[in-house]
């Protein structure tokens, strides 16, 4: 102690690295203590699998003959509009985009059966996707219309690029009103009918590296069943959020922007998702290895659900109106018990993030490393931390004179 990433990679190459999941490390530290465990363990693998709306893919469609400038025109994939405000045949397919003729919430609550997240899943599953585009002609790009099928294997690049994933902690949602509400946190029954939360808790990447000591720009990760990288800190990254003594944030805090080649990902880990009454999105699987470079880093990975707290927020009034009030805090261990007490009432709990799948991700990553297929990378830049003065800003309206 301390170890280096190069030494850990050497152990991985020799098949001697000791790799455990963020769940397994808890028991190891309890049994052996931090000092001994830090000497023995080389890598701790984490995982999370939940709906992450800030996700999407850059696609380069290839050039038609005659050429067509889809950039600046309009295009859809399986009727879902894509962003064309970039070069001639580059588009961005966002997870929450939906067909123009989707009724949205006109038939409340809307079902949002098919959107950008579903197109991404279908692309990755190898299905043919219908491309329809119209644009204006230019001297160098004369063609104005196209209707064709495309397939992931035939297009040039397909880069999953998610501006905000893997939230370090999140709100716990309830509904204090007297009618059912339909939110991005799921269906919330009236009068505190249920409690919904979304995290893999003790398995979640940023809970295991609360101060971003190892996870940074360039960190190689499990992304959507393939290999990806942390490309930047995510949007709304808020390292200044309230923290417990153990360093773990008690509110939504850090986030990650991640990137990877969509062509080597799997539909099982990029699942098109429909939130009734809210919209469509993508459920993303992410796993991050944490190199045990010091006892401090190891001690953070031993964090348990009972030590991780999140705020209970009313989604009928407080959240929509951006009010600051919370109804209390509970730990993820309490949430996982199936019921918690809110305002004196016992309320059943549900998760939108799959702990079962998160465990599979952490185990898959562990297997990759054990087989020598996955080596760790050194971060090339740190994520903004608690000392960097990065805060979450609201948007306050200003009159346009």
């Amino acid at each position: 102690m301390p170890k280096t990433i190069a030494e850990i990679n050497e152990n991985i190459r020799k098949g001697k690295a000791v790799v455990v999941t963020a769940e397994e490390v808890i028991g190891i530290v309890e049994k052996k203590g931090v000092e001994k465990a830090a000497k023995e363990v080389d890598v701790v693998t984490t995982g999370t699998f939940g709906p992450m709306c800030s996700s999407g893919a850059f696609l380069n469609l290839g050039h038609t003959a005659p050429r067509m400038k889809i950039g600046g025109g309009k295009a859809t994939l399986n009727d879902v509009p894509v962003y064309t405000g970039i070069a001639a045949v580059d588009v961005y397919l966002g997870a929450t985009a939906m067909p123009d003729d989707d009724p949205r919430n006109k038939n409340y609550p809307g079902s949002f059966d098919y959107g950008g997240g579903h197109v991404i899943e279908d692309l990755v599953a190898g299905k043919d996707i219908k491309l329809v585009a119209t644009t204006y002609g230019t001297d160098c790009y004369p063609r104005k219309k196209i209707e064709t099928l495309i397939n992931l294997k035939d297009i040039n690049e397909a880069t999953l690029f998610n501006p905000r994933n893997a939230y370090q902690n999140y709100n716990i949602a309830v509904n204090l009103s007297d009618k059912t509400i339909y939110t991005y946190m799921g269906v919330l029954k009236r009068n505190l009918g249920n409690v919904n939360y979304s995290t893999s808790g003790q398995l979640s990447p940023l809970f295991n590296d609360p101060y971003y000591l190892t996870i940074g720009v360039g960190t190689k990760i499990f992304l959507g069943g393939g290999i990806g990288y942390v490309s930047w800190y995510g949007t709304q990254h808020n390292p200044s959020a309230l923290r417990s003594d153990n360093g773990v944030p008690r509110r939504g805090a850090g986030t990650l922007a991640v990137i990877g080649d969509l062509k080597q990902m799997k539909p099982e880990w990029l699942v098109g998702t429909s939130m009734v009454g809210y919209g469509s999105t993508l459920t993303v699987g992410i796993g991050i290895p944490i190199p045990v470079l010091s006892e401090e880093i190891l001690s953070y990975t031993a964090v348990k659900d009972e030590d991780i707290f999140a705020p209970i927020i009313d989604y009928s009034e407080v959240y929509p109106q951006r009010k600051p009030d919370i109804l209390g805090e509970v730990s993820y261990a309490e949430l996982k018990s199936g019921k918690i007490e809110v305002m004196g009432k016992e309320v059943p709990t549900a998760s939108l993030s799959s702990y079962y799948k998160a465990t599979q991700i952490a185990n898959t990553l562990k297997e990759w490393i054990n087989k020598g297929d996955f080596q760790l990378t050194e971060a090339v830049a740190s994520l903004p931390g608690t000392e960097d003065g990065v805060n979450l800003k609201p948007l306050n309206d200003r009159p346009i004179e």
Partner: protein
Amino acid sequence: MAVTKRVVLHFPRSLVDQPIMCRLAREFNIDFNILKASVTPKEEGLLVVELTGESKDYKLGVKYLEKSGVQLQPLSQDVIRNENRCTHCGACVVLCPTEALIVDPATRKVNFVHEKCIACGICVTACPPRAMEIRF
């Protein structure tokens, strides 16, 4: 000839405080046995009942229910889970009125106990990956 049938009755909000089941018993001689009662997310009343009565009375009773605005759904329809799509998140467990969908505390997998399912269909639209399917 007496008949016994299991049906799901959906009461729109406007009917929830009406003495419909009472009249069904009194005026149409139909015995009912409540298997499950709950309020759905859409705030309608949901009753799963076993109705028993003479064939003629049963027909008239059903007609009365339909005329009153109660929606009848035979229990012969079925909800199944597409195992390939279920991500075991758990969003359904707090919505299922009969605890047919429950989290296994050891594996954190969501178990679907088909025998407990009354095929009300609440989970179908609430399931984020759309793993629950209704079959008629």
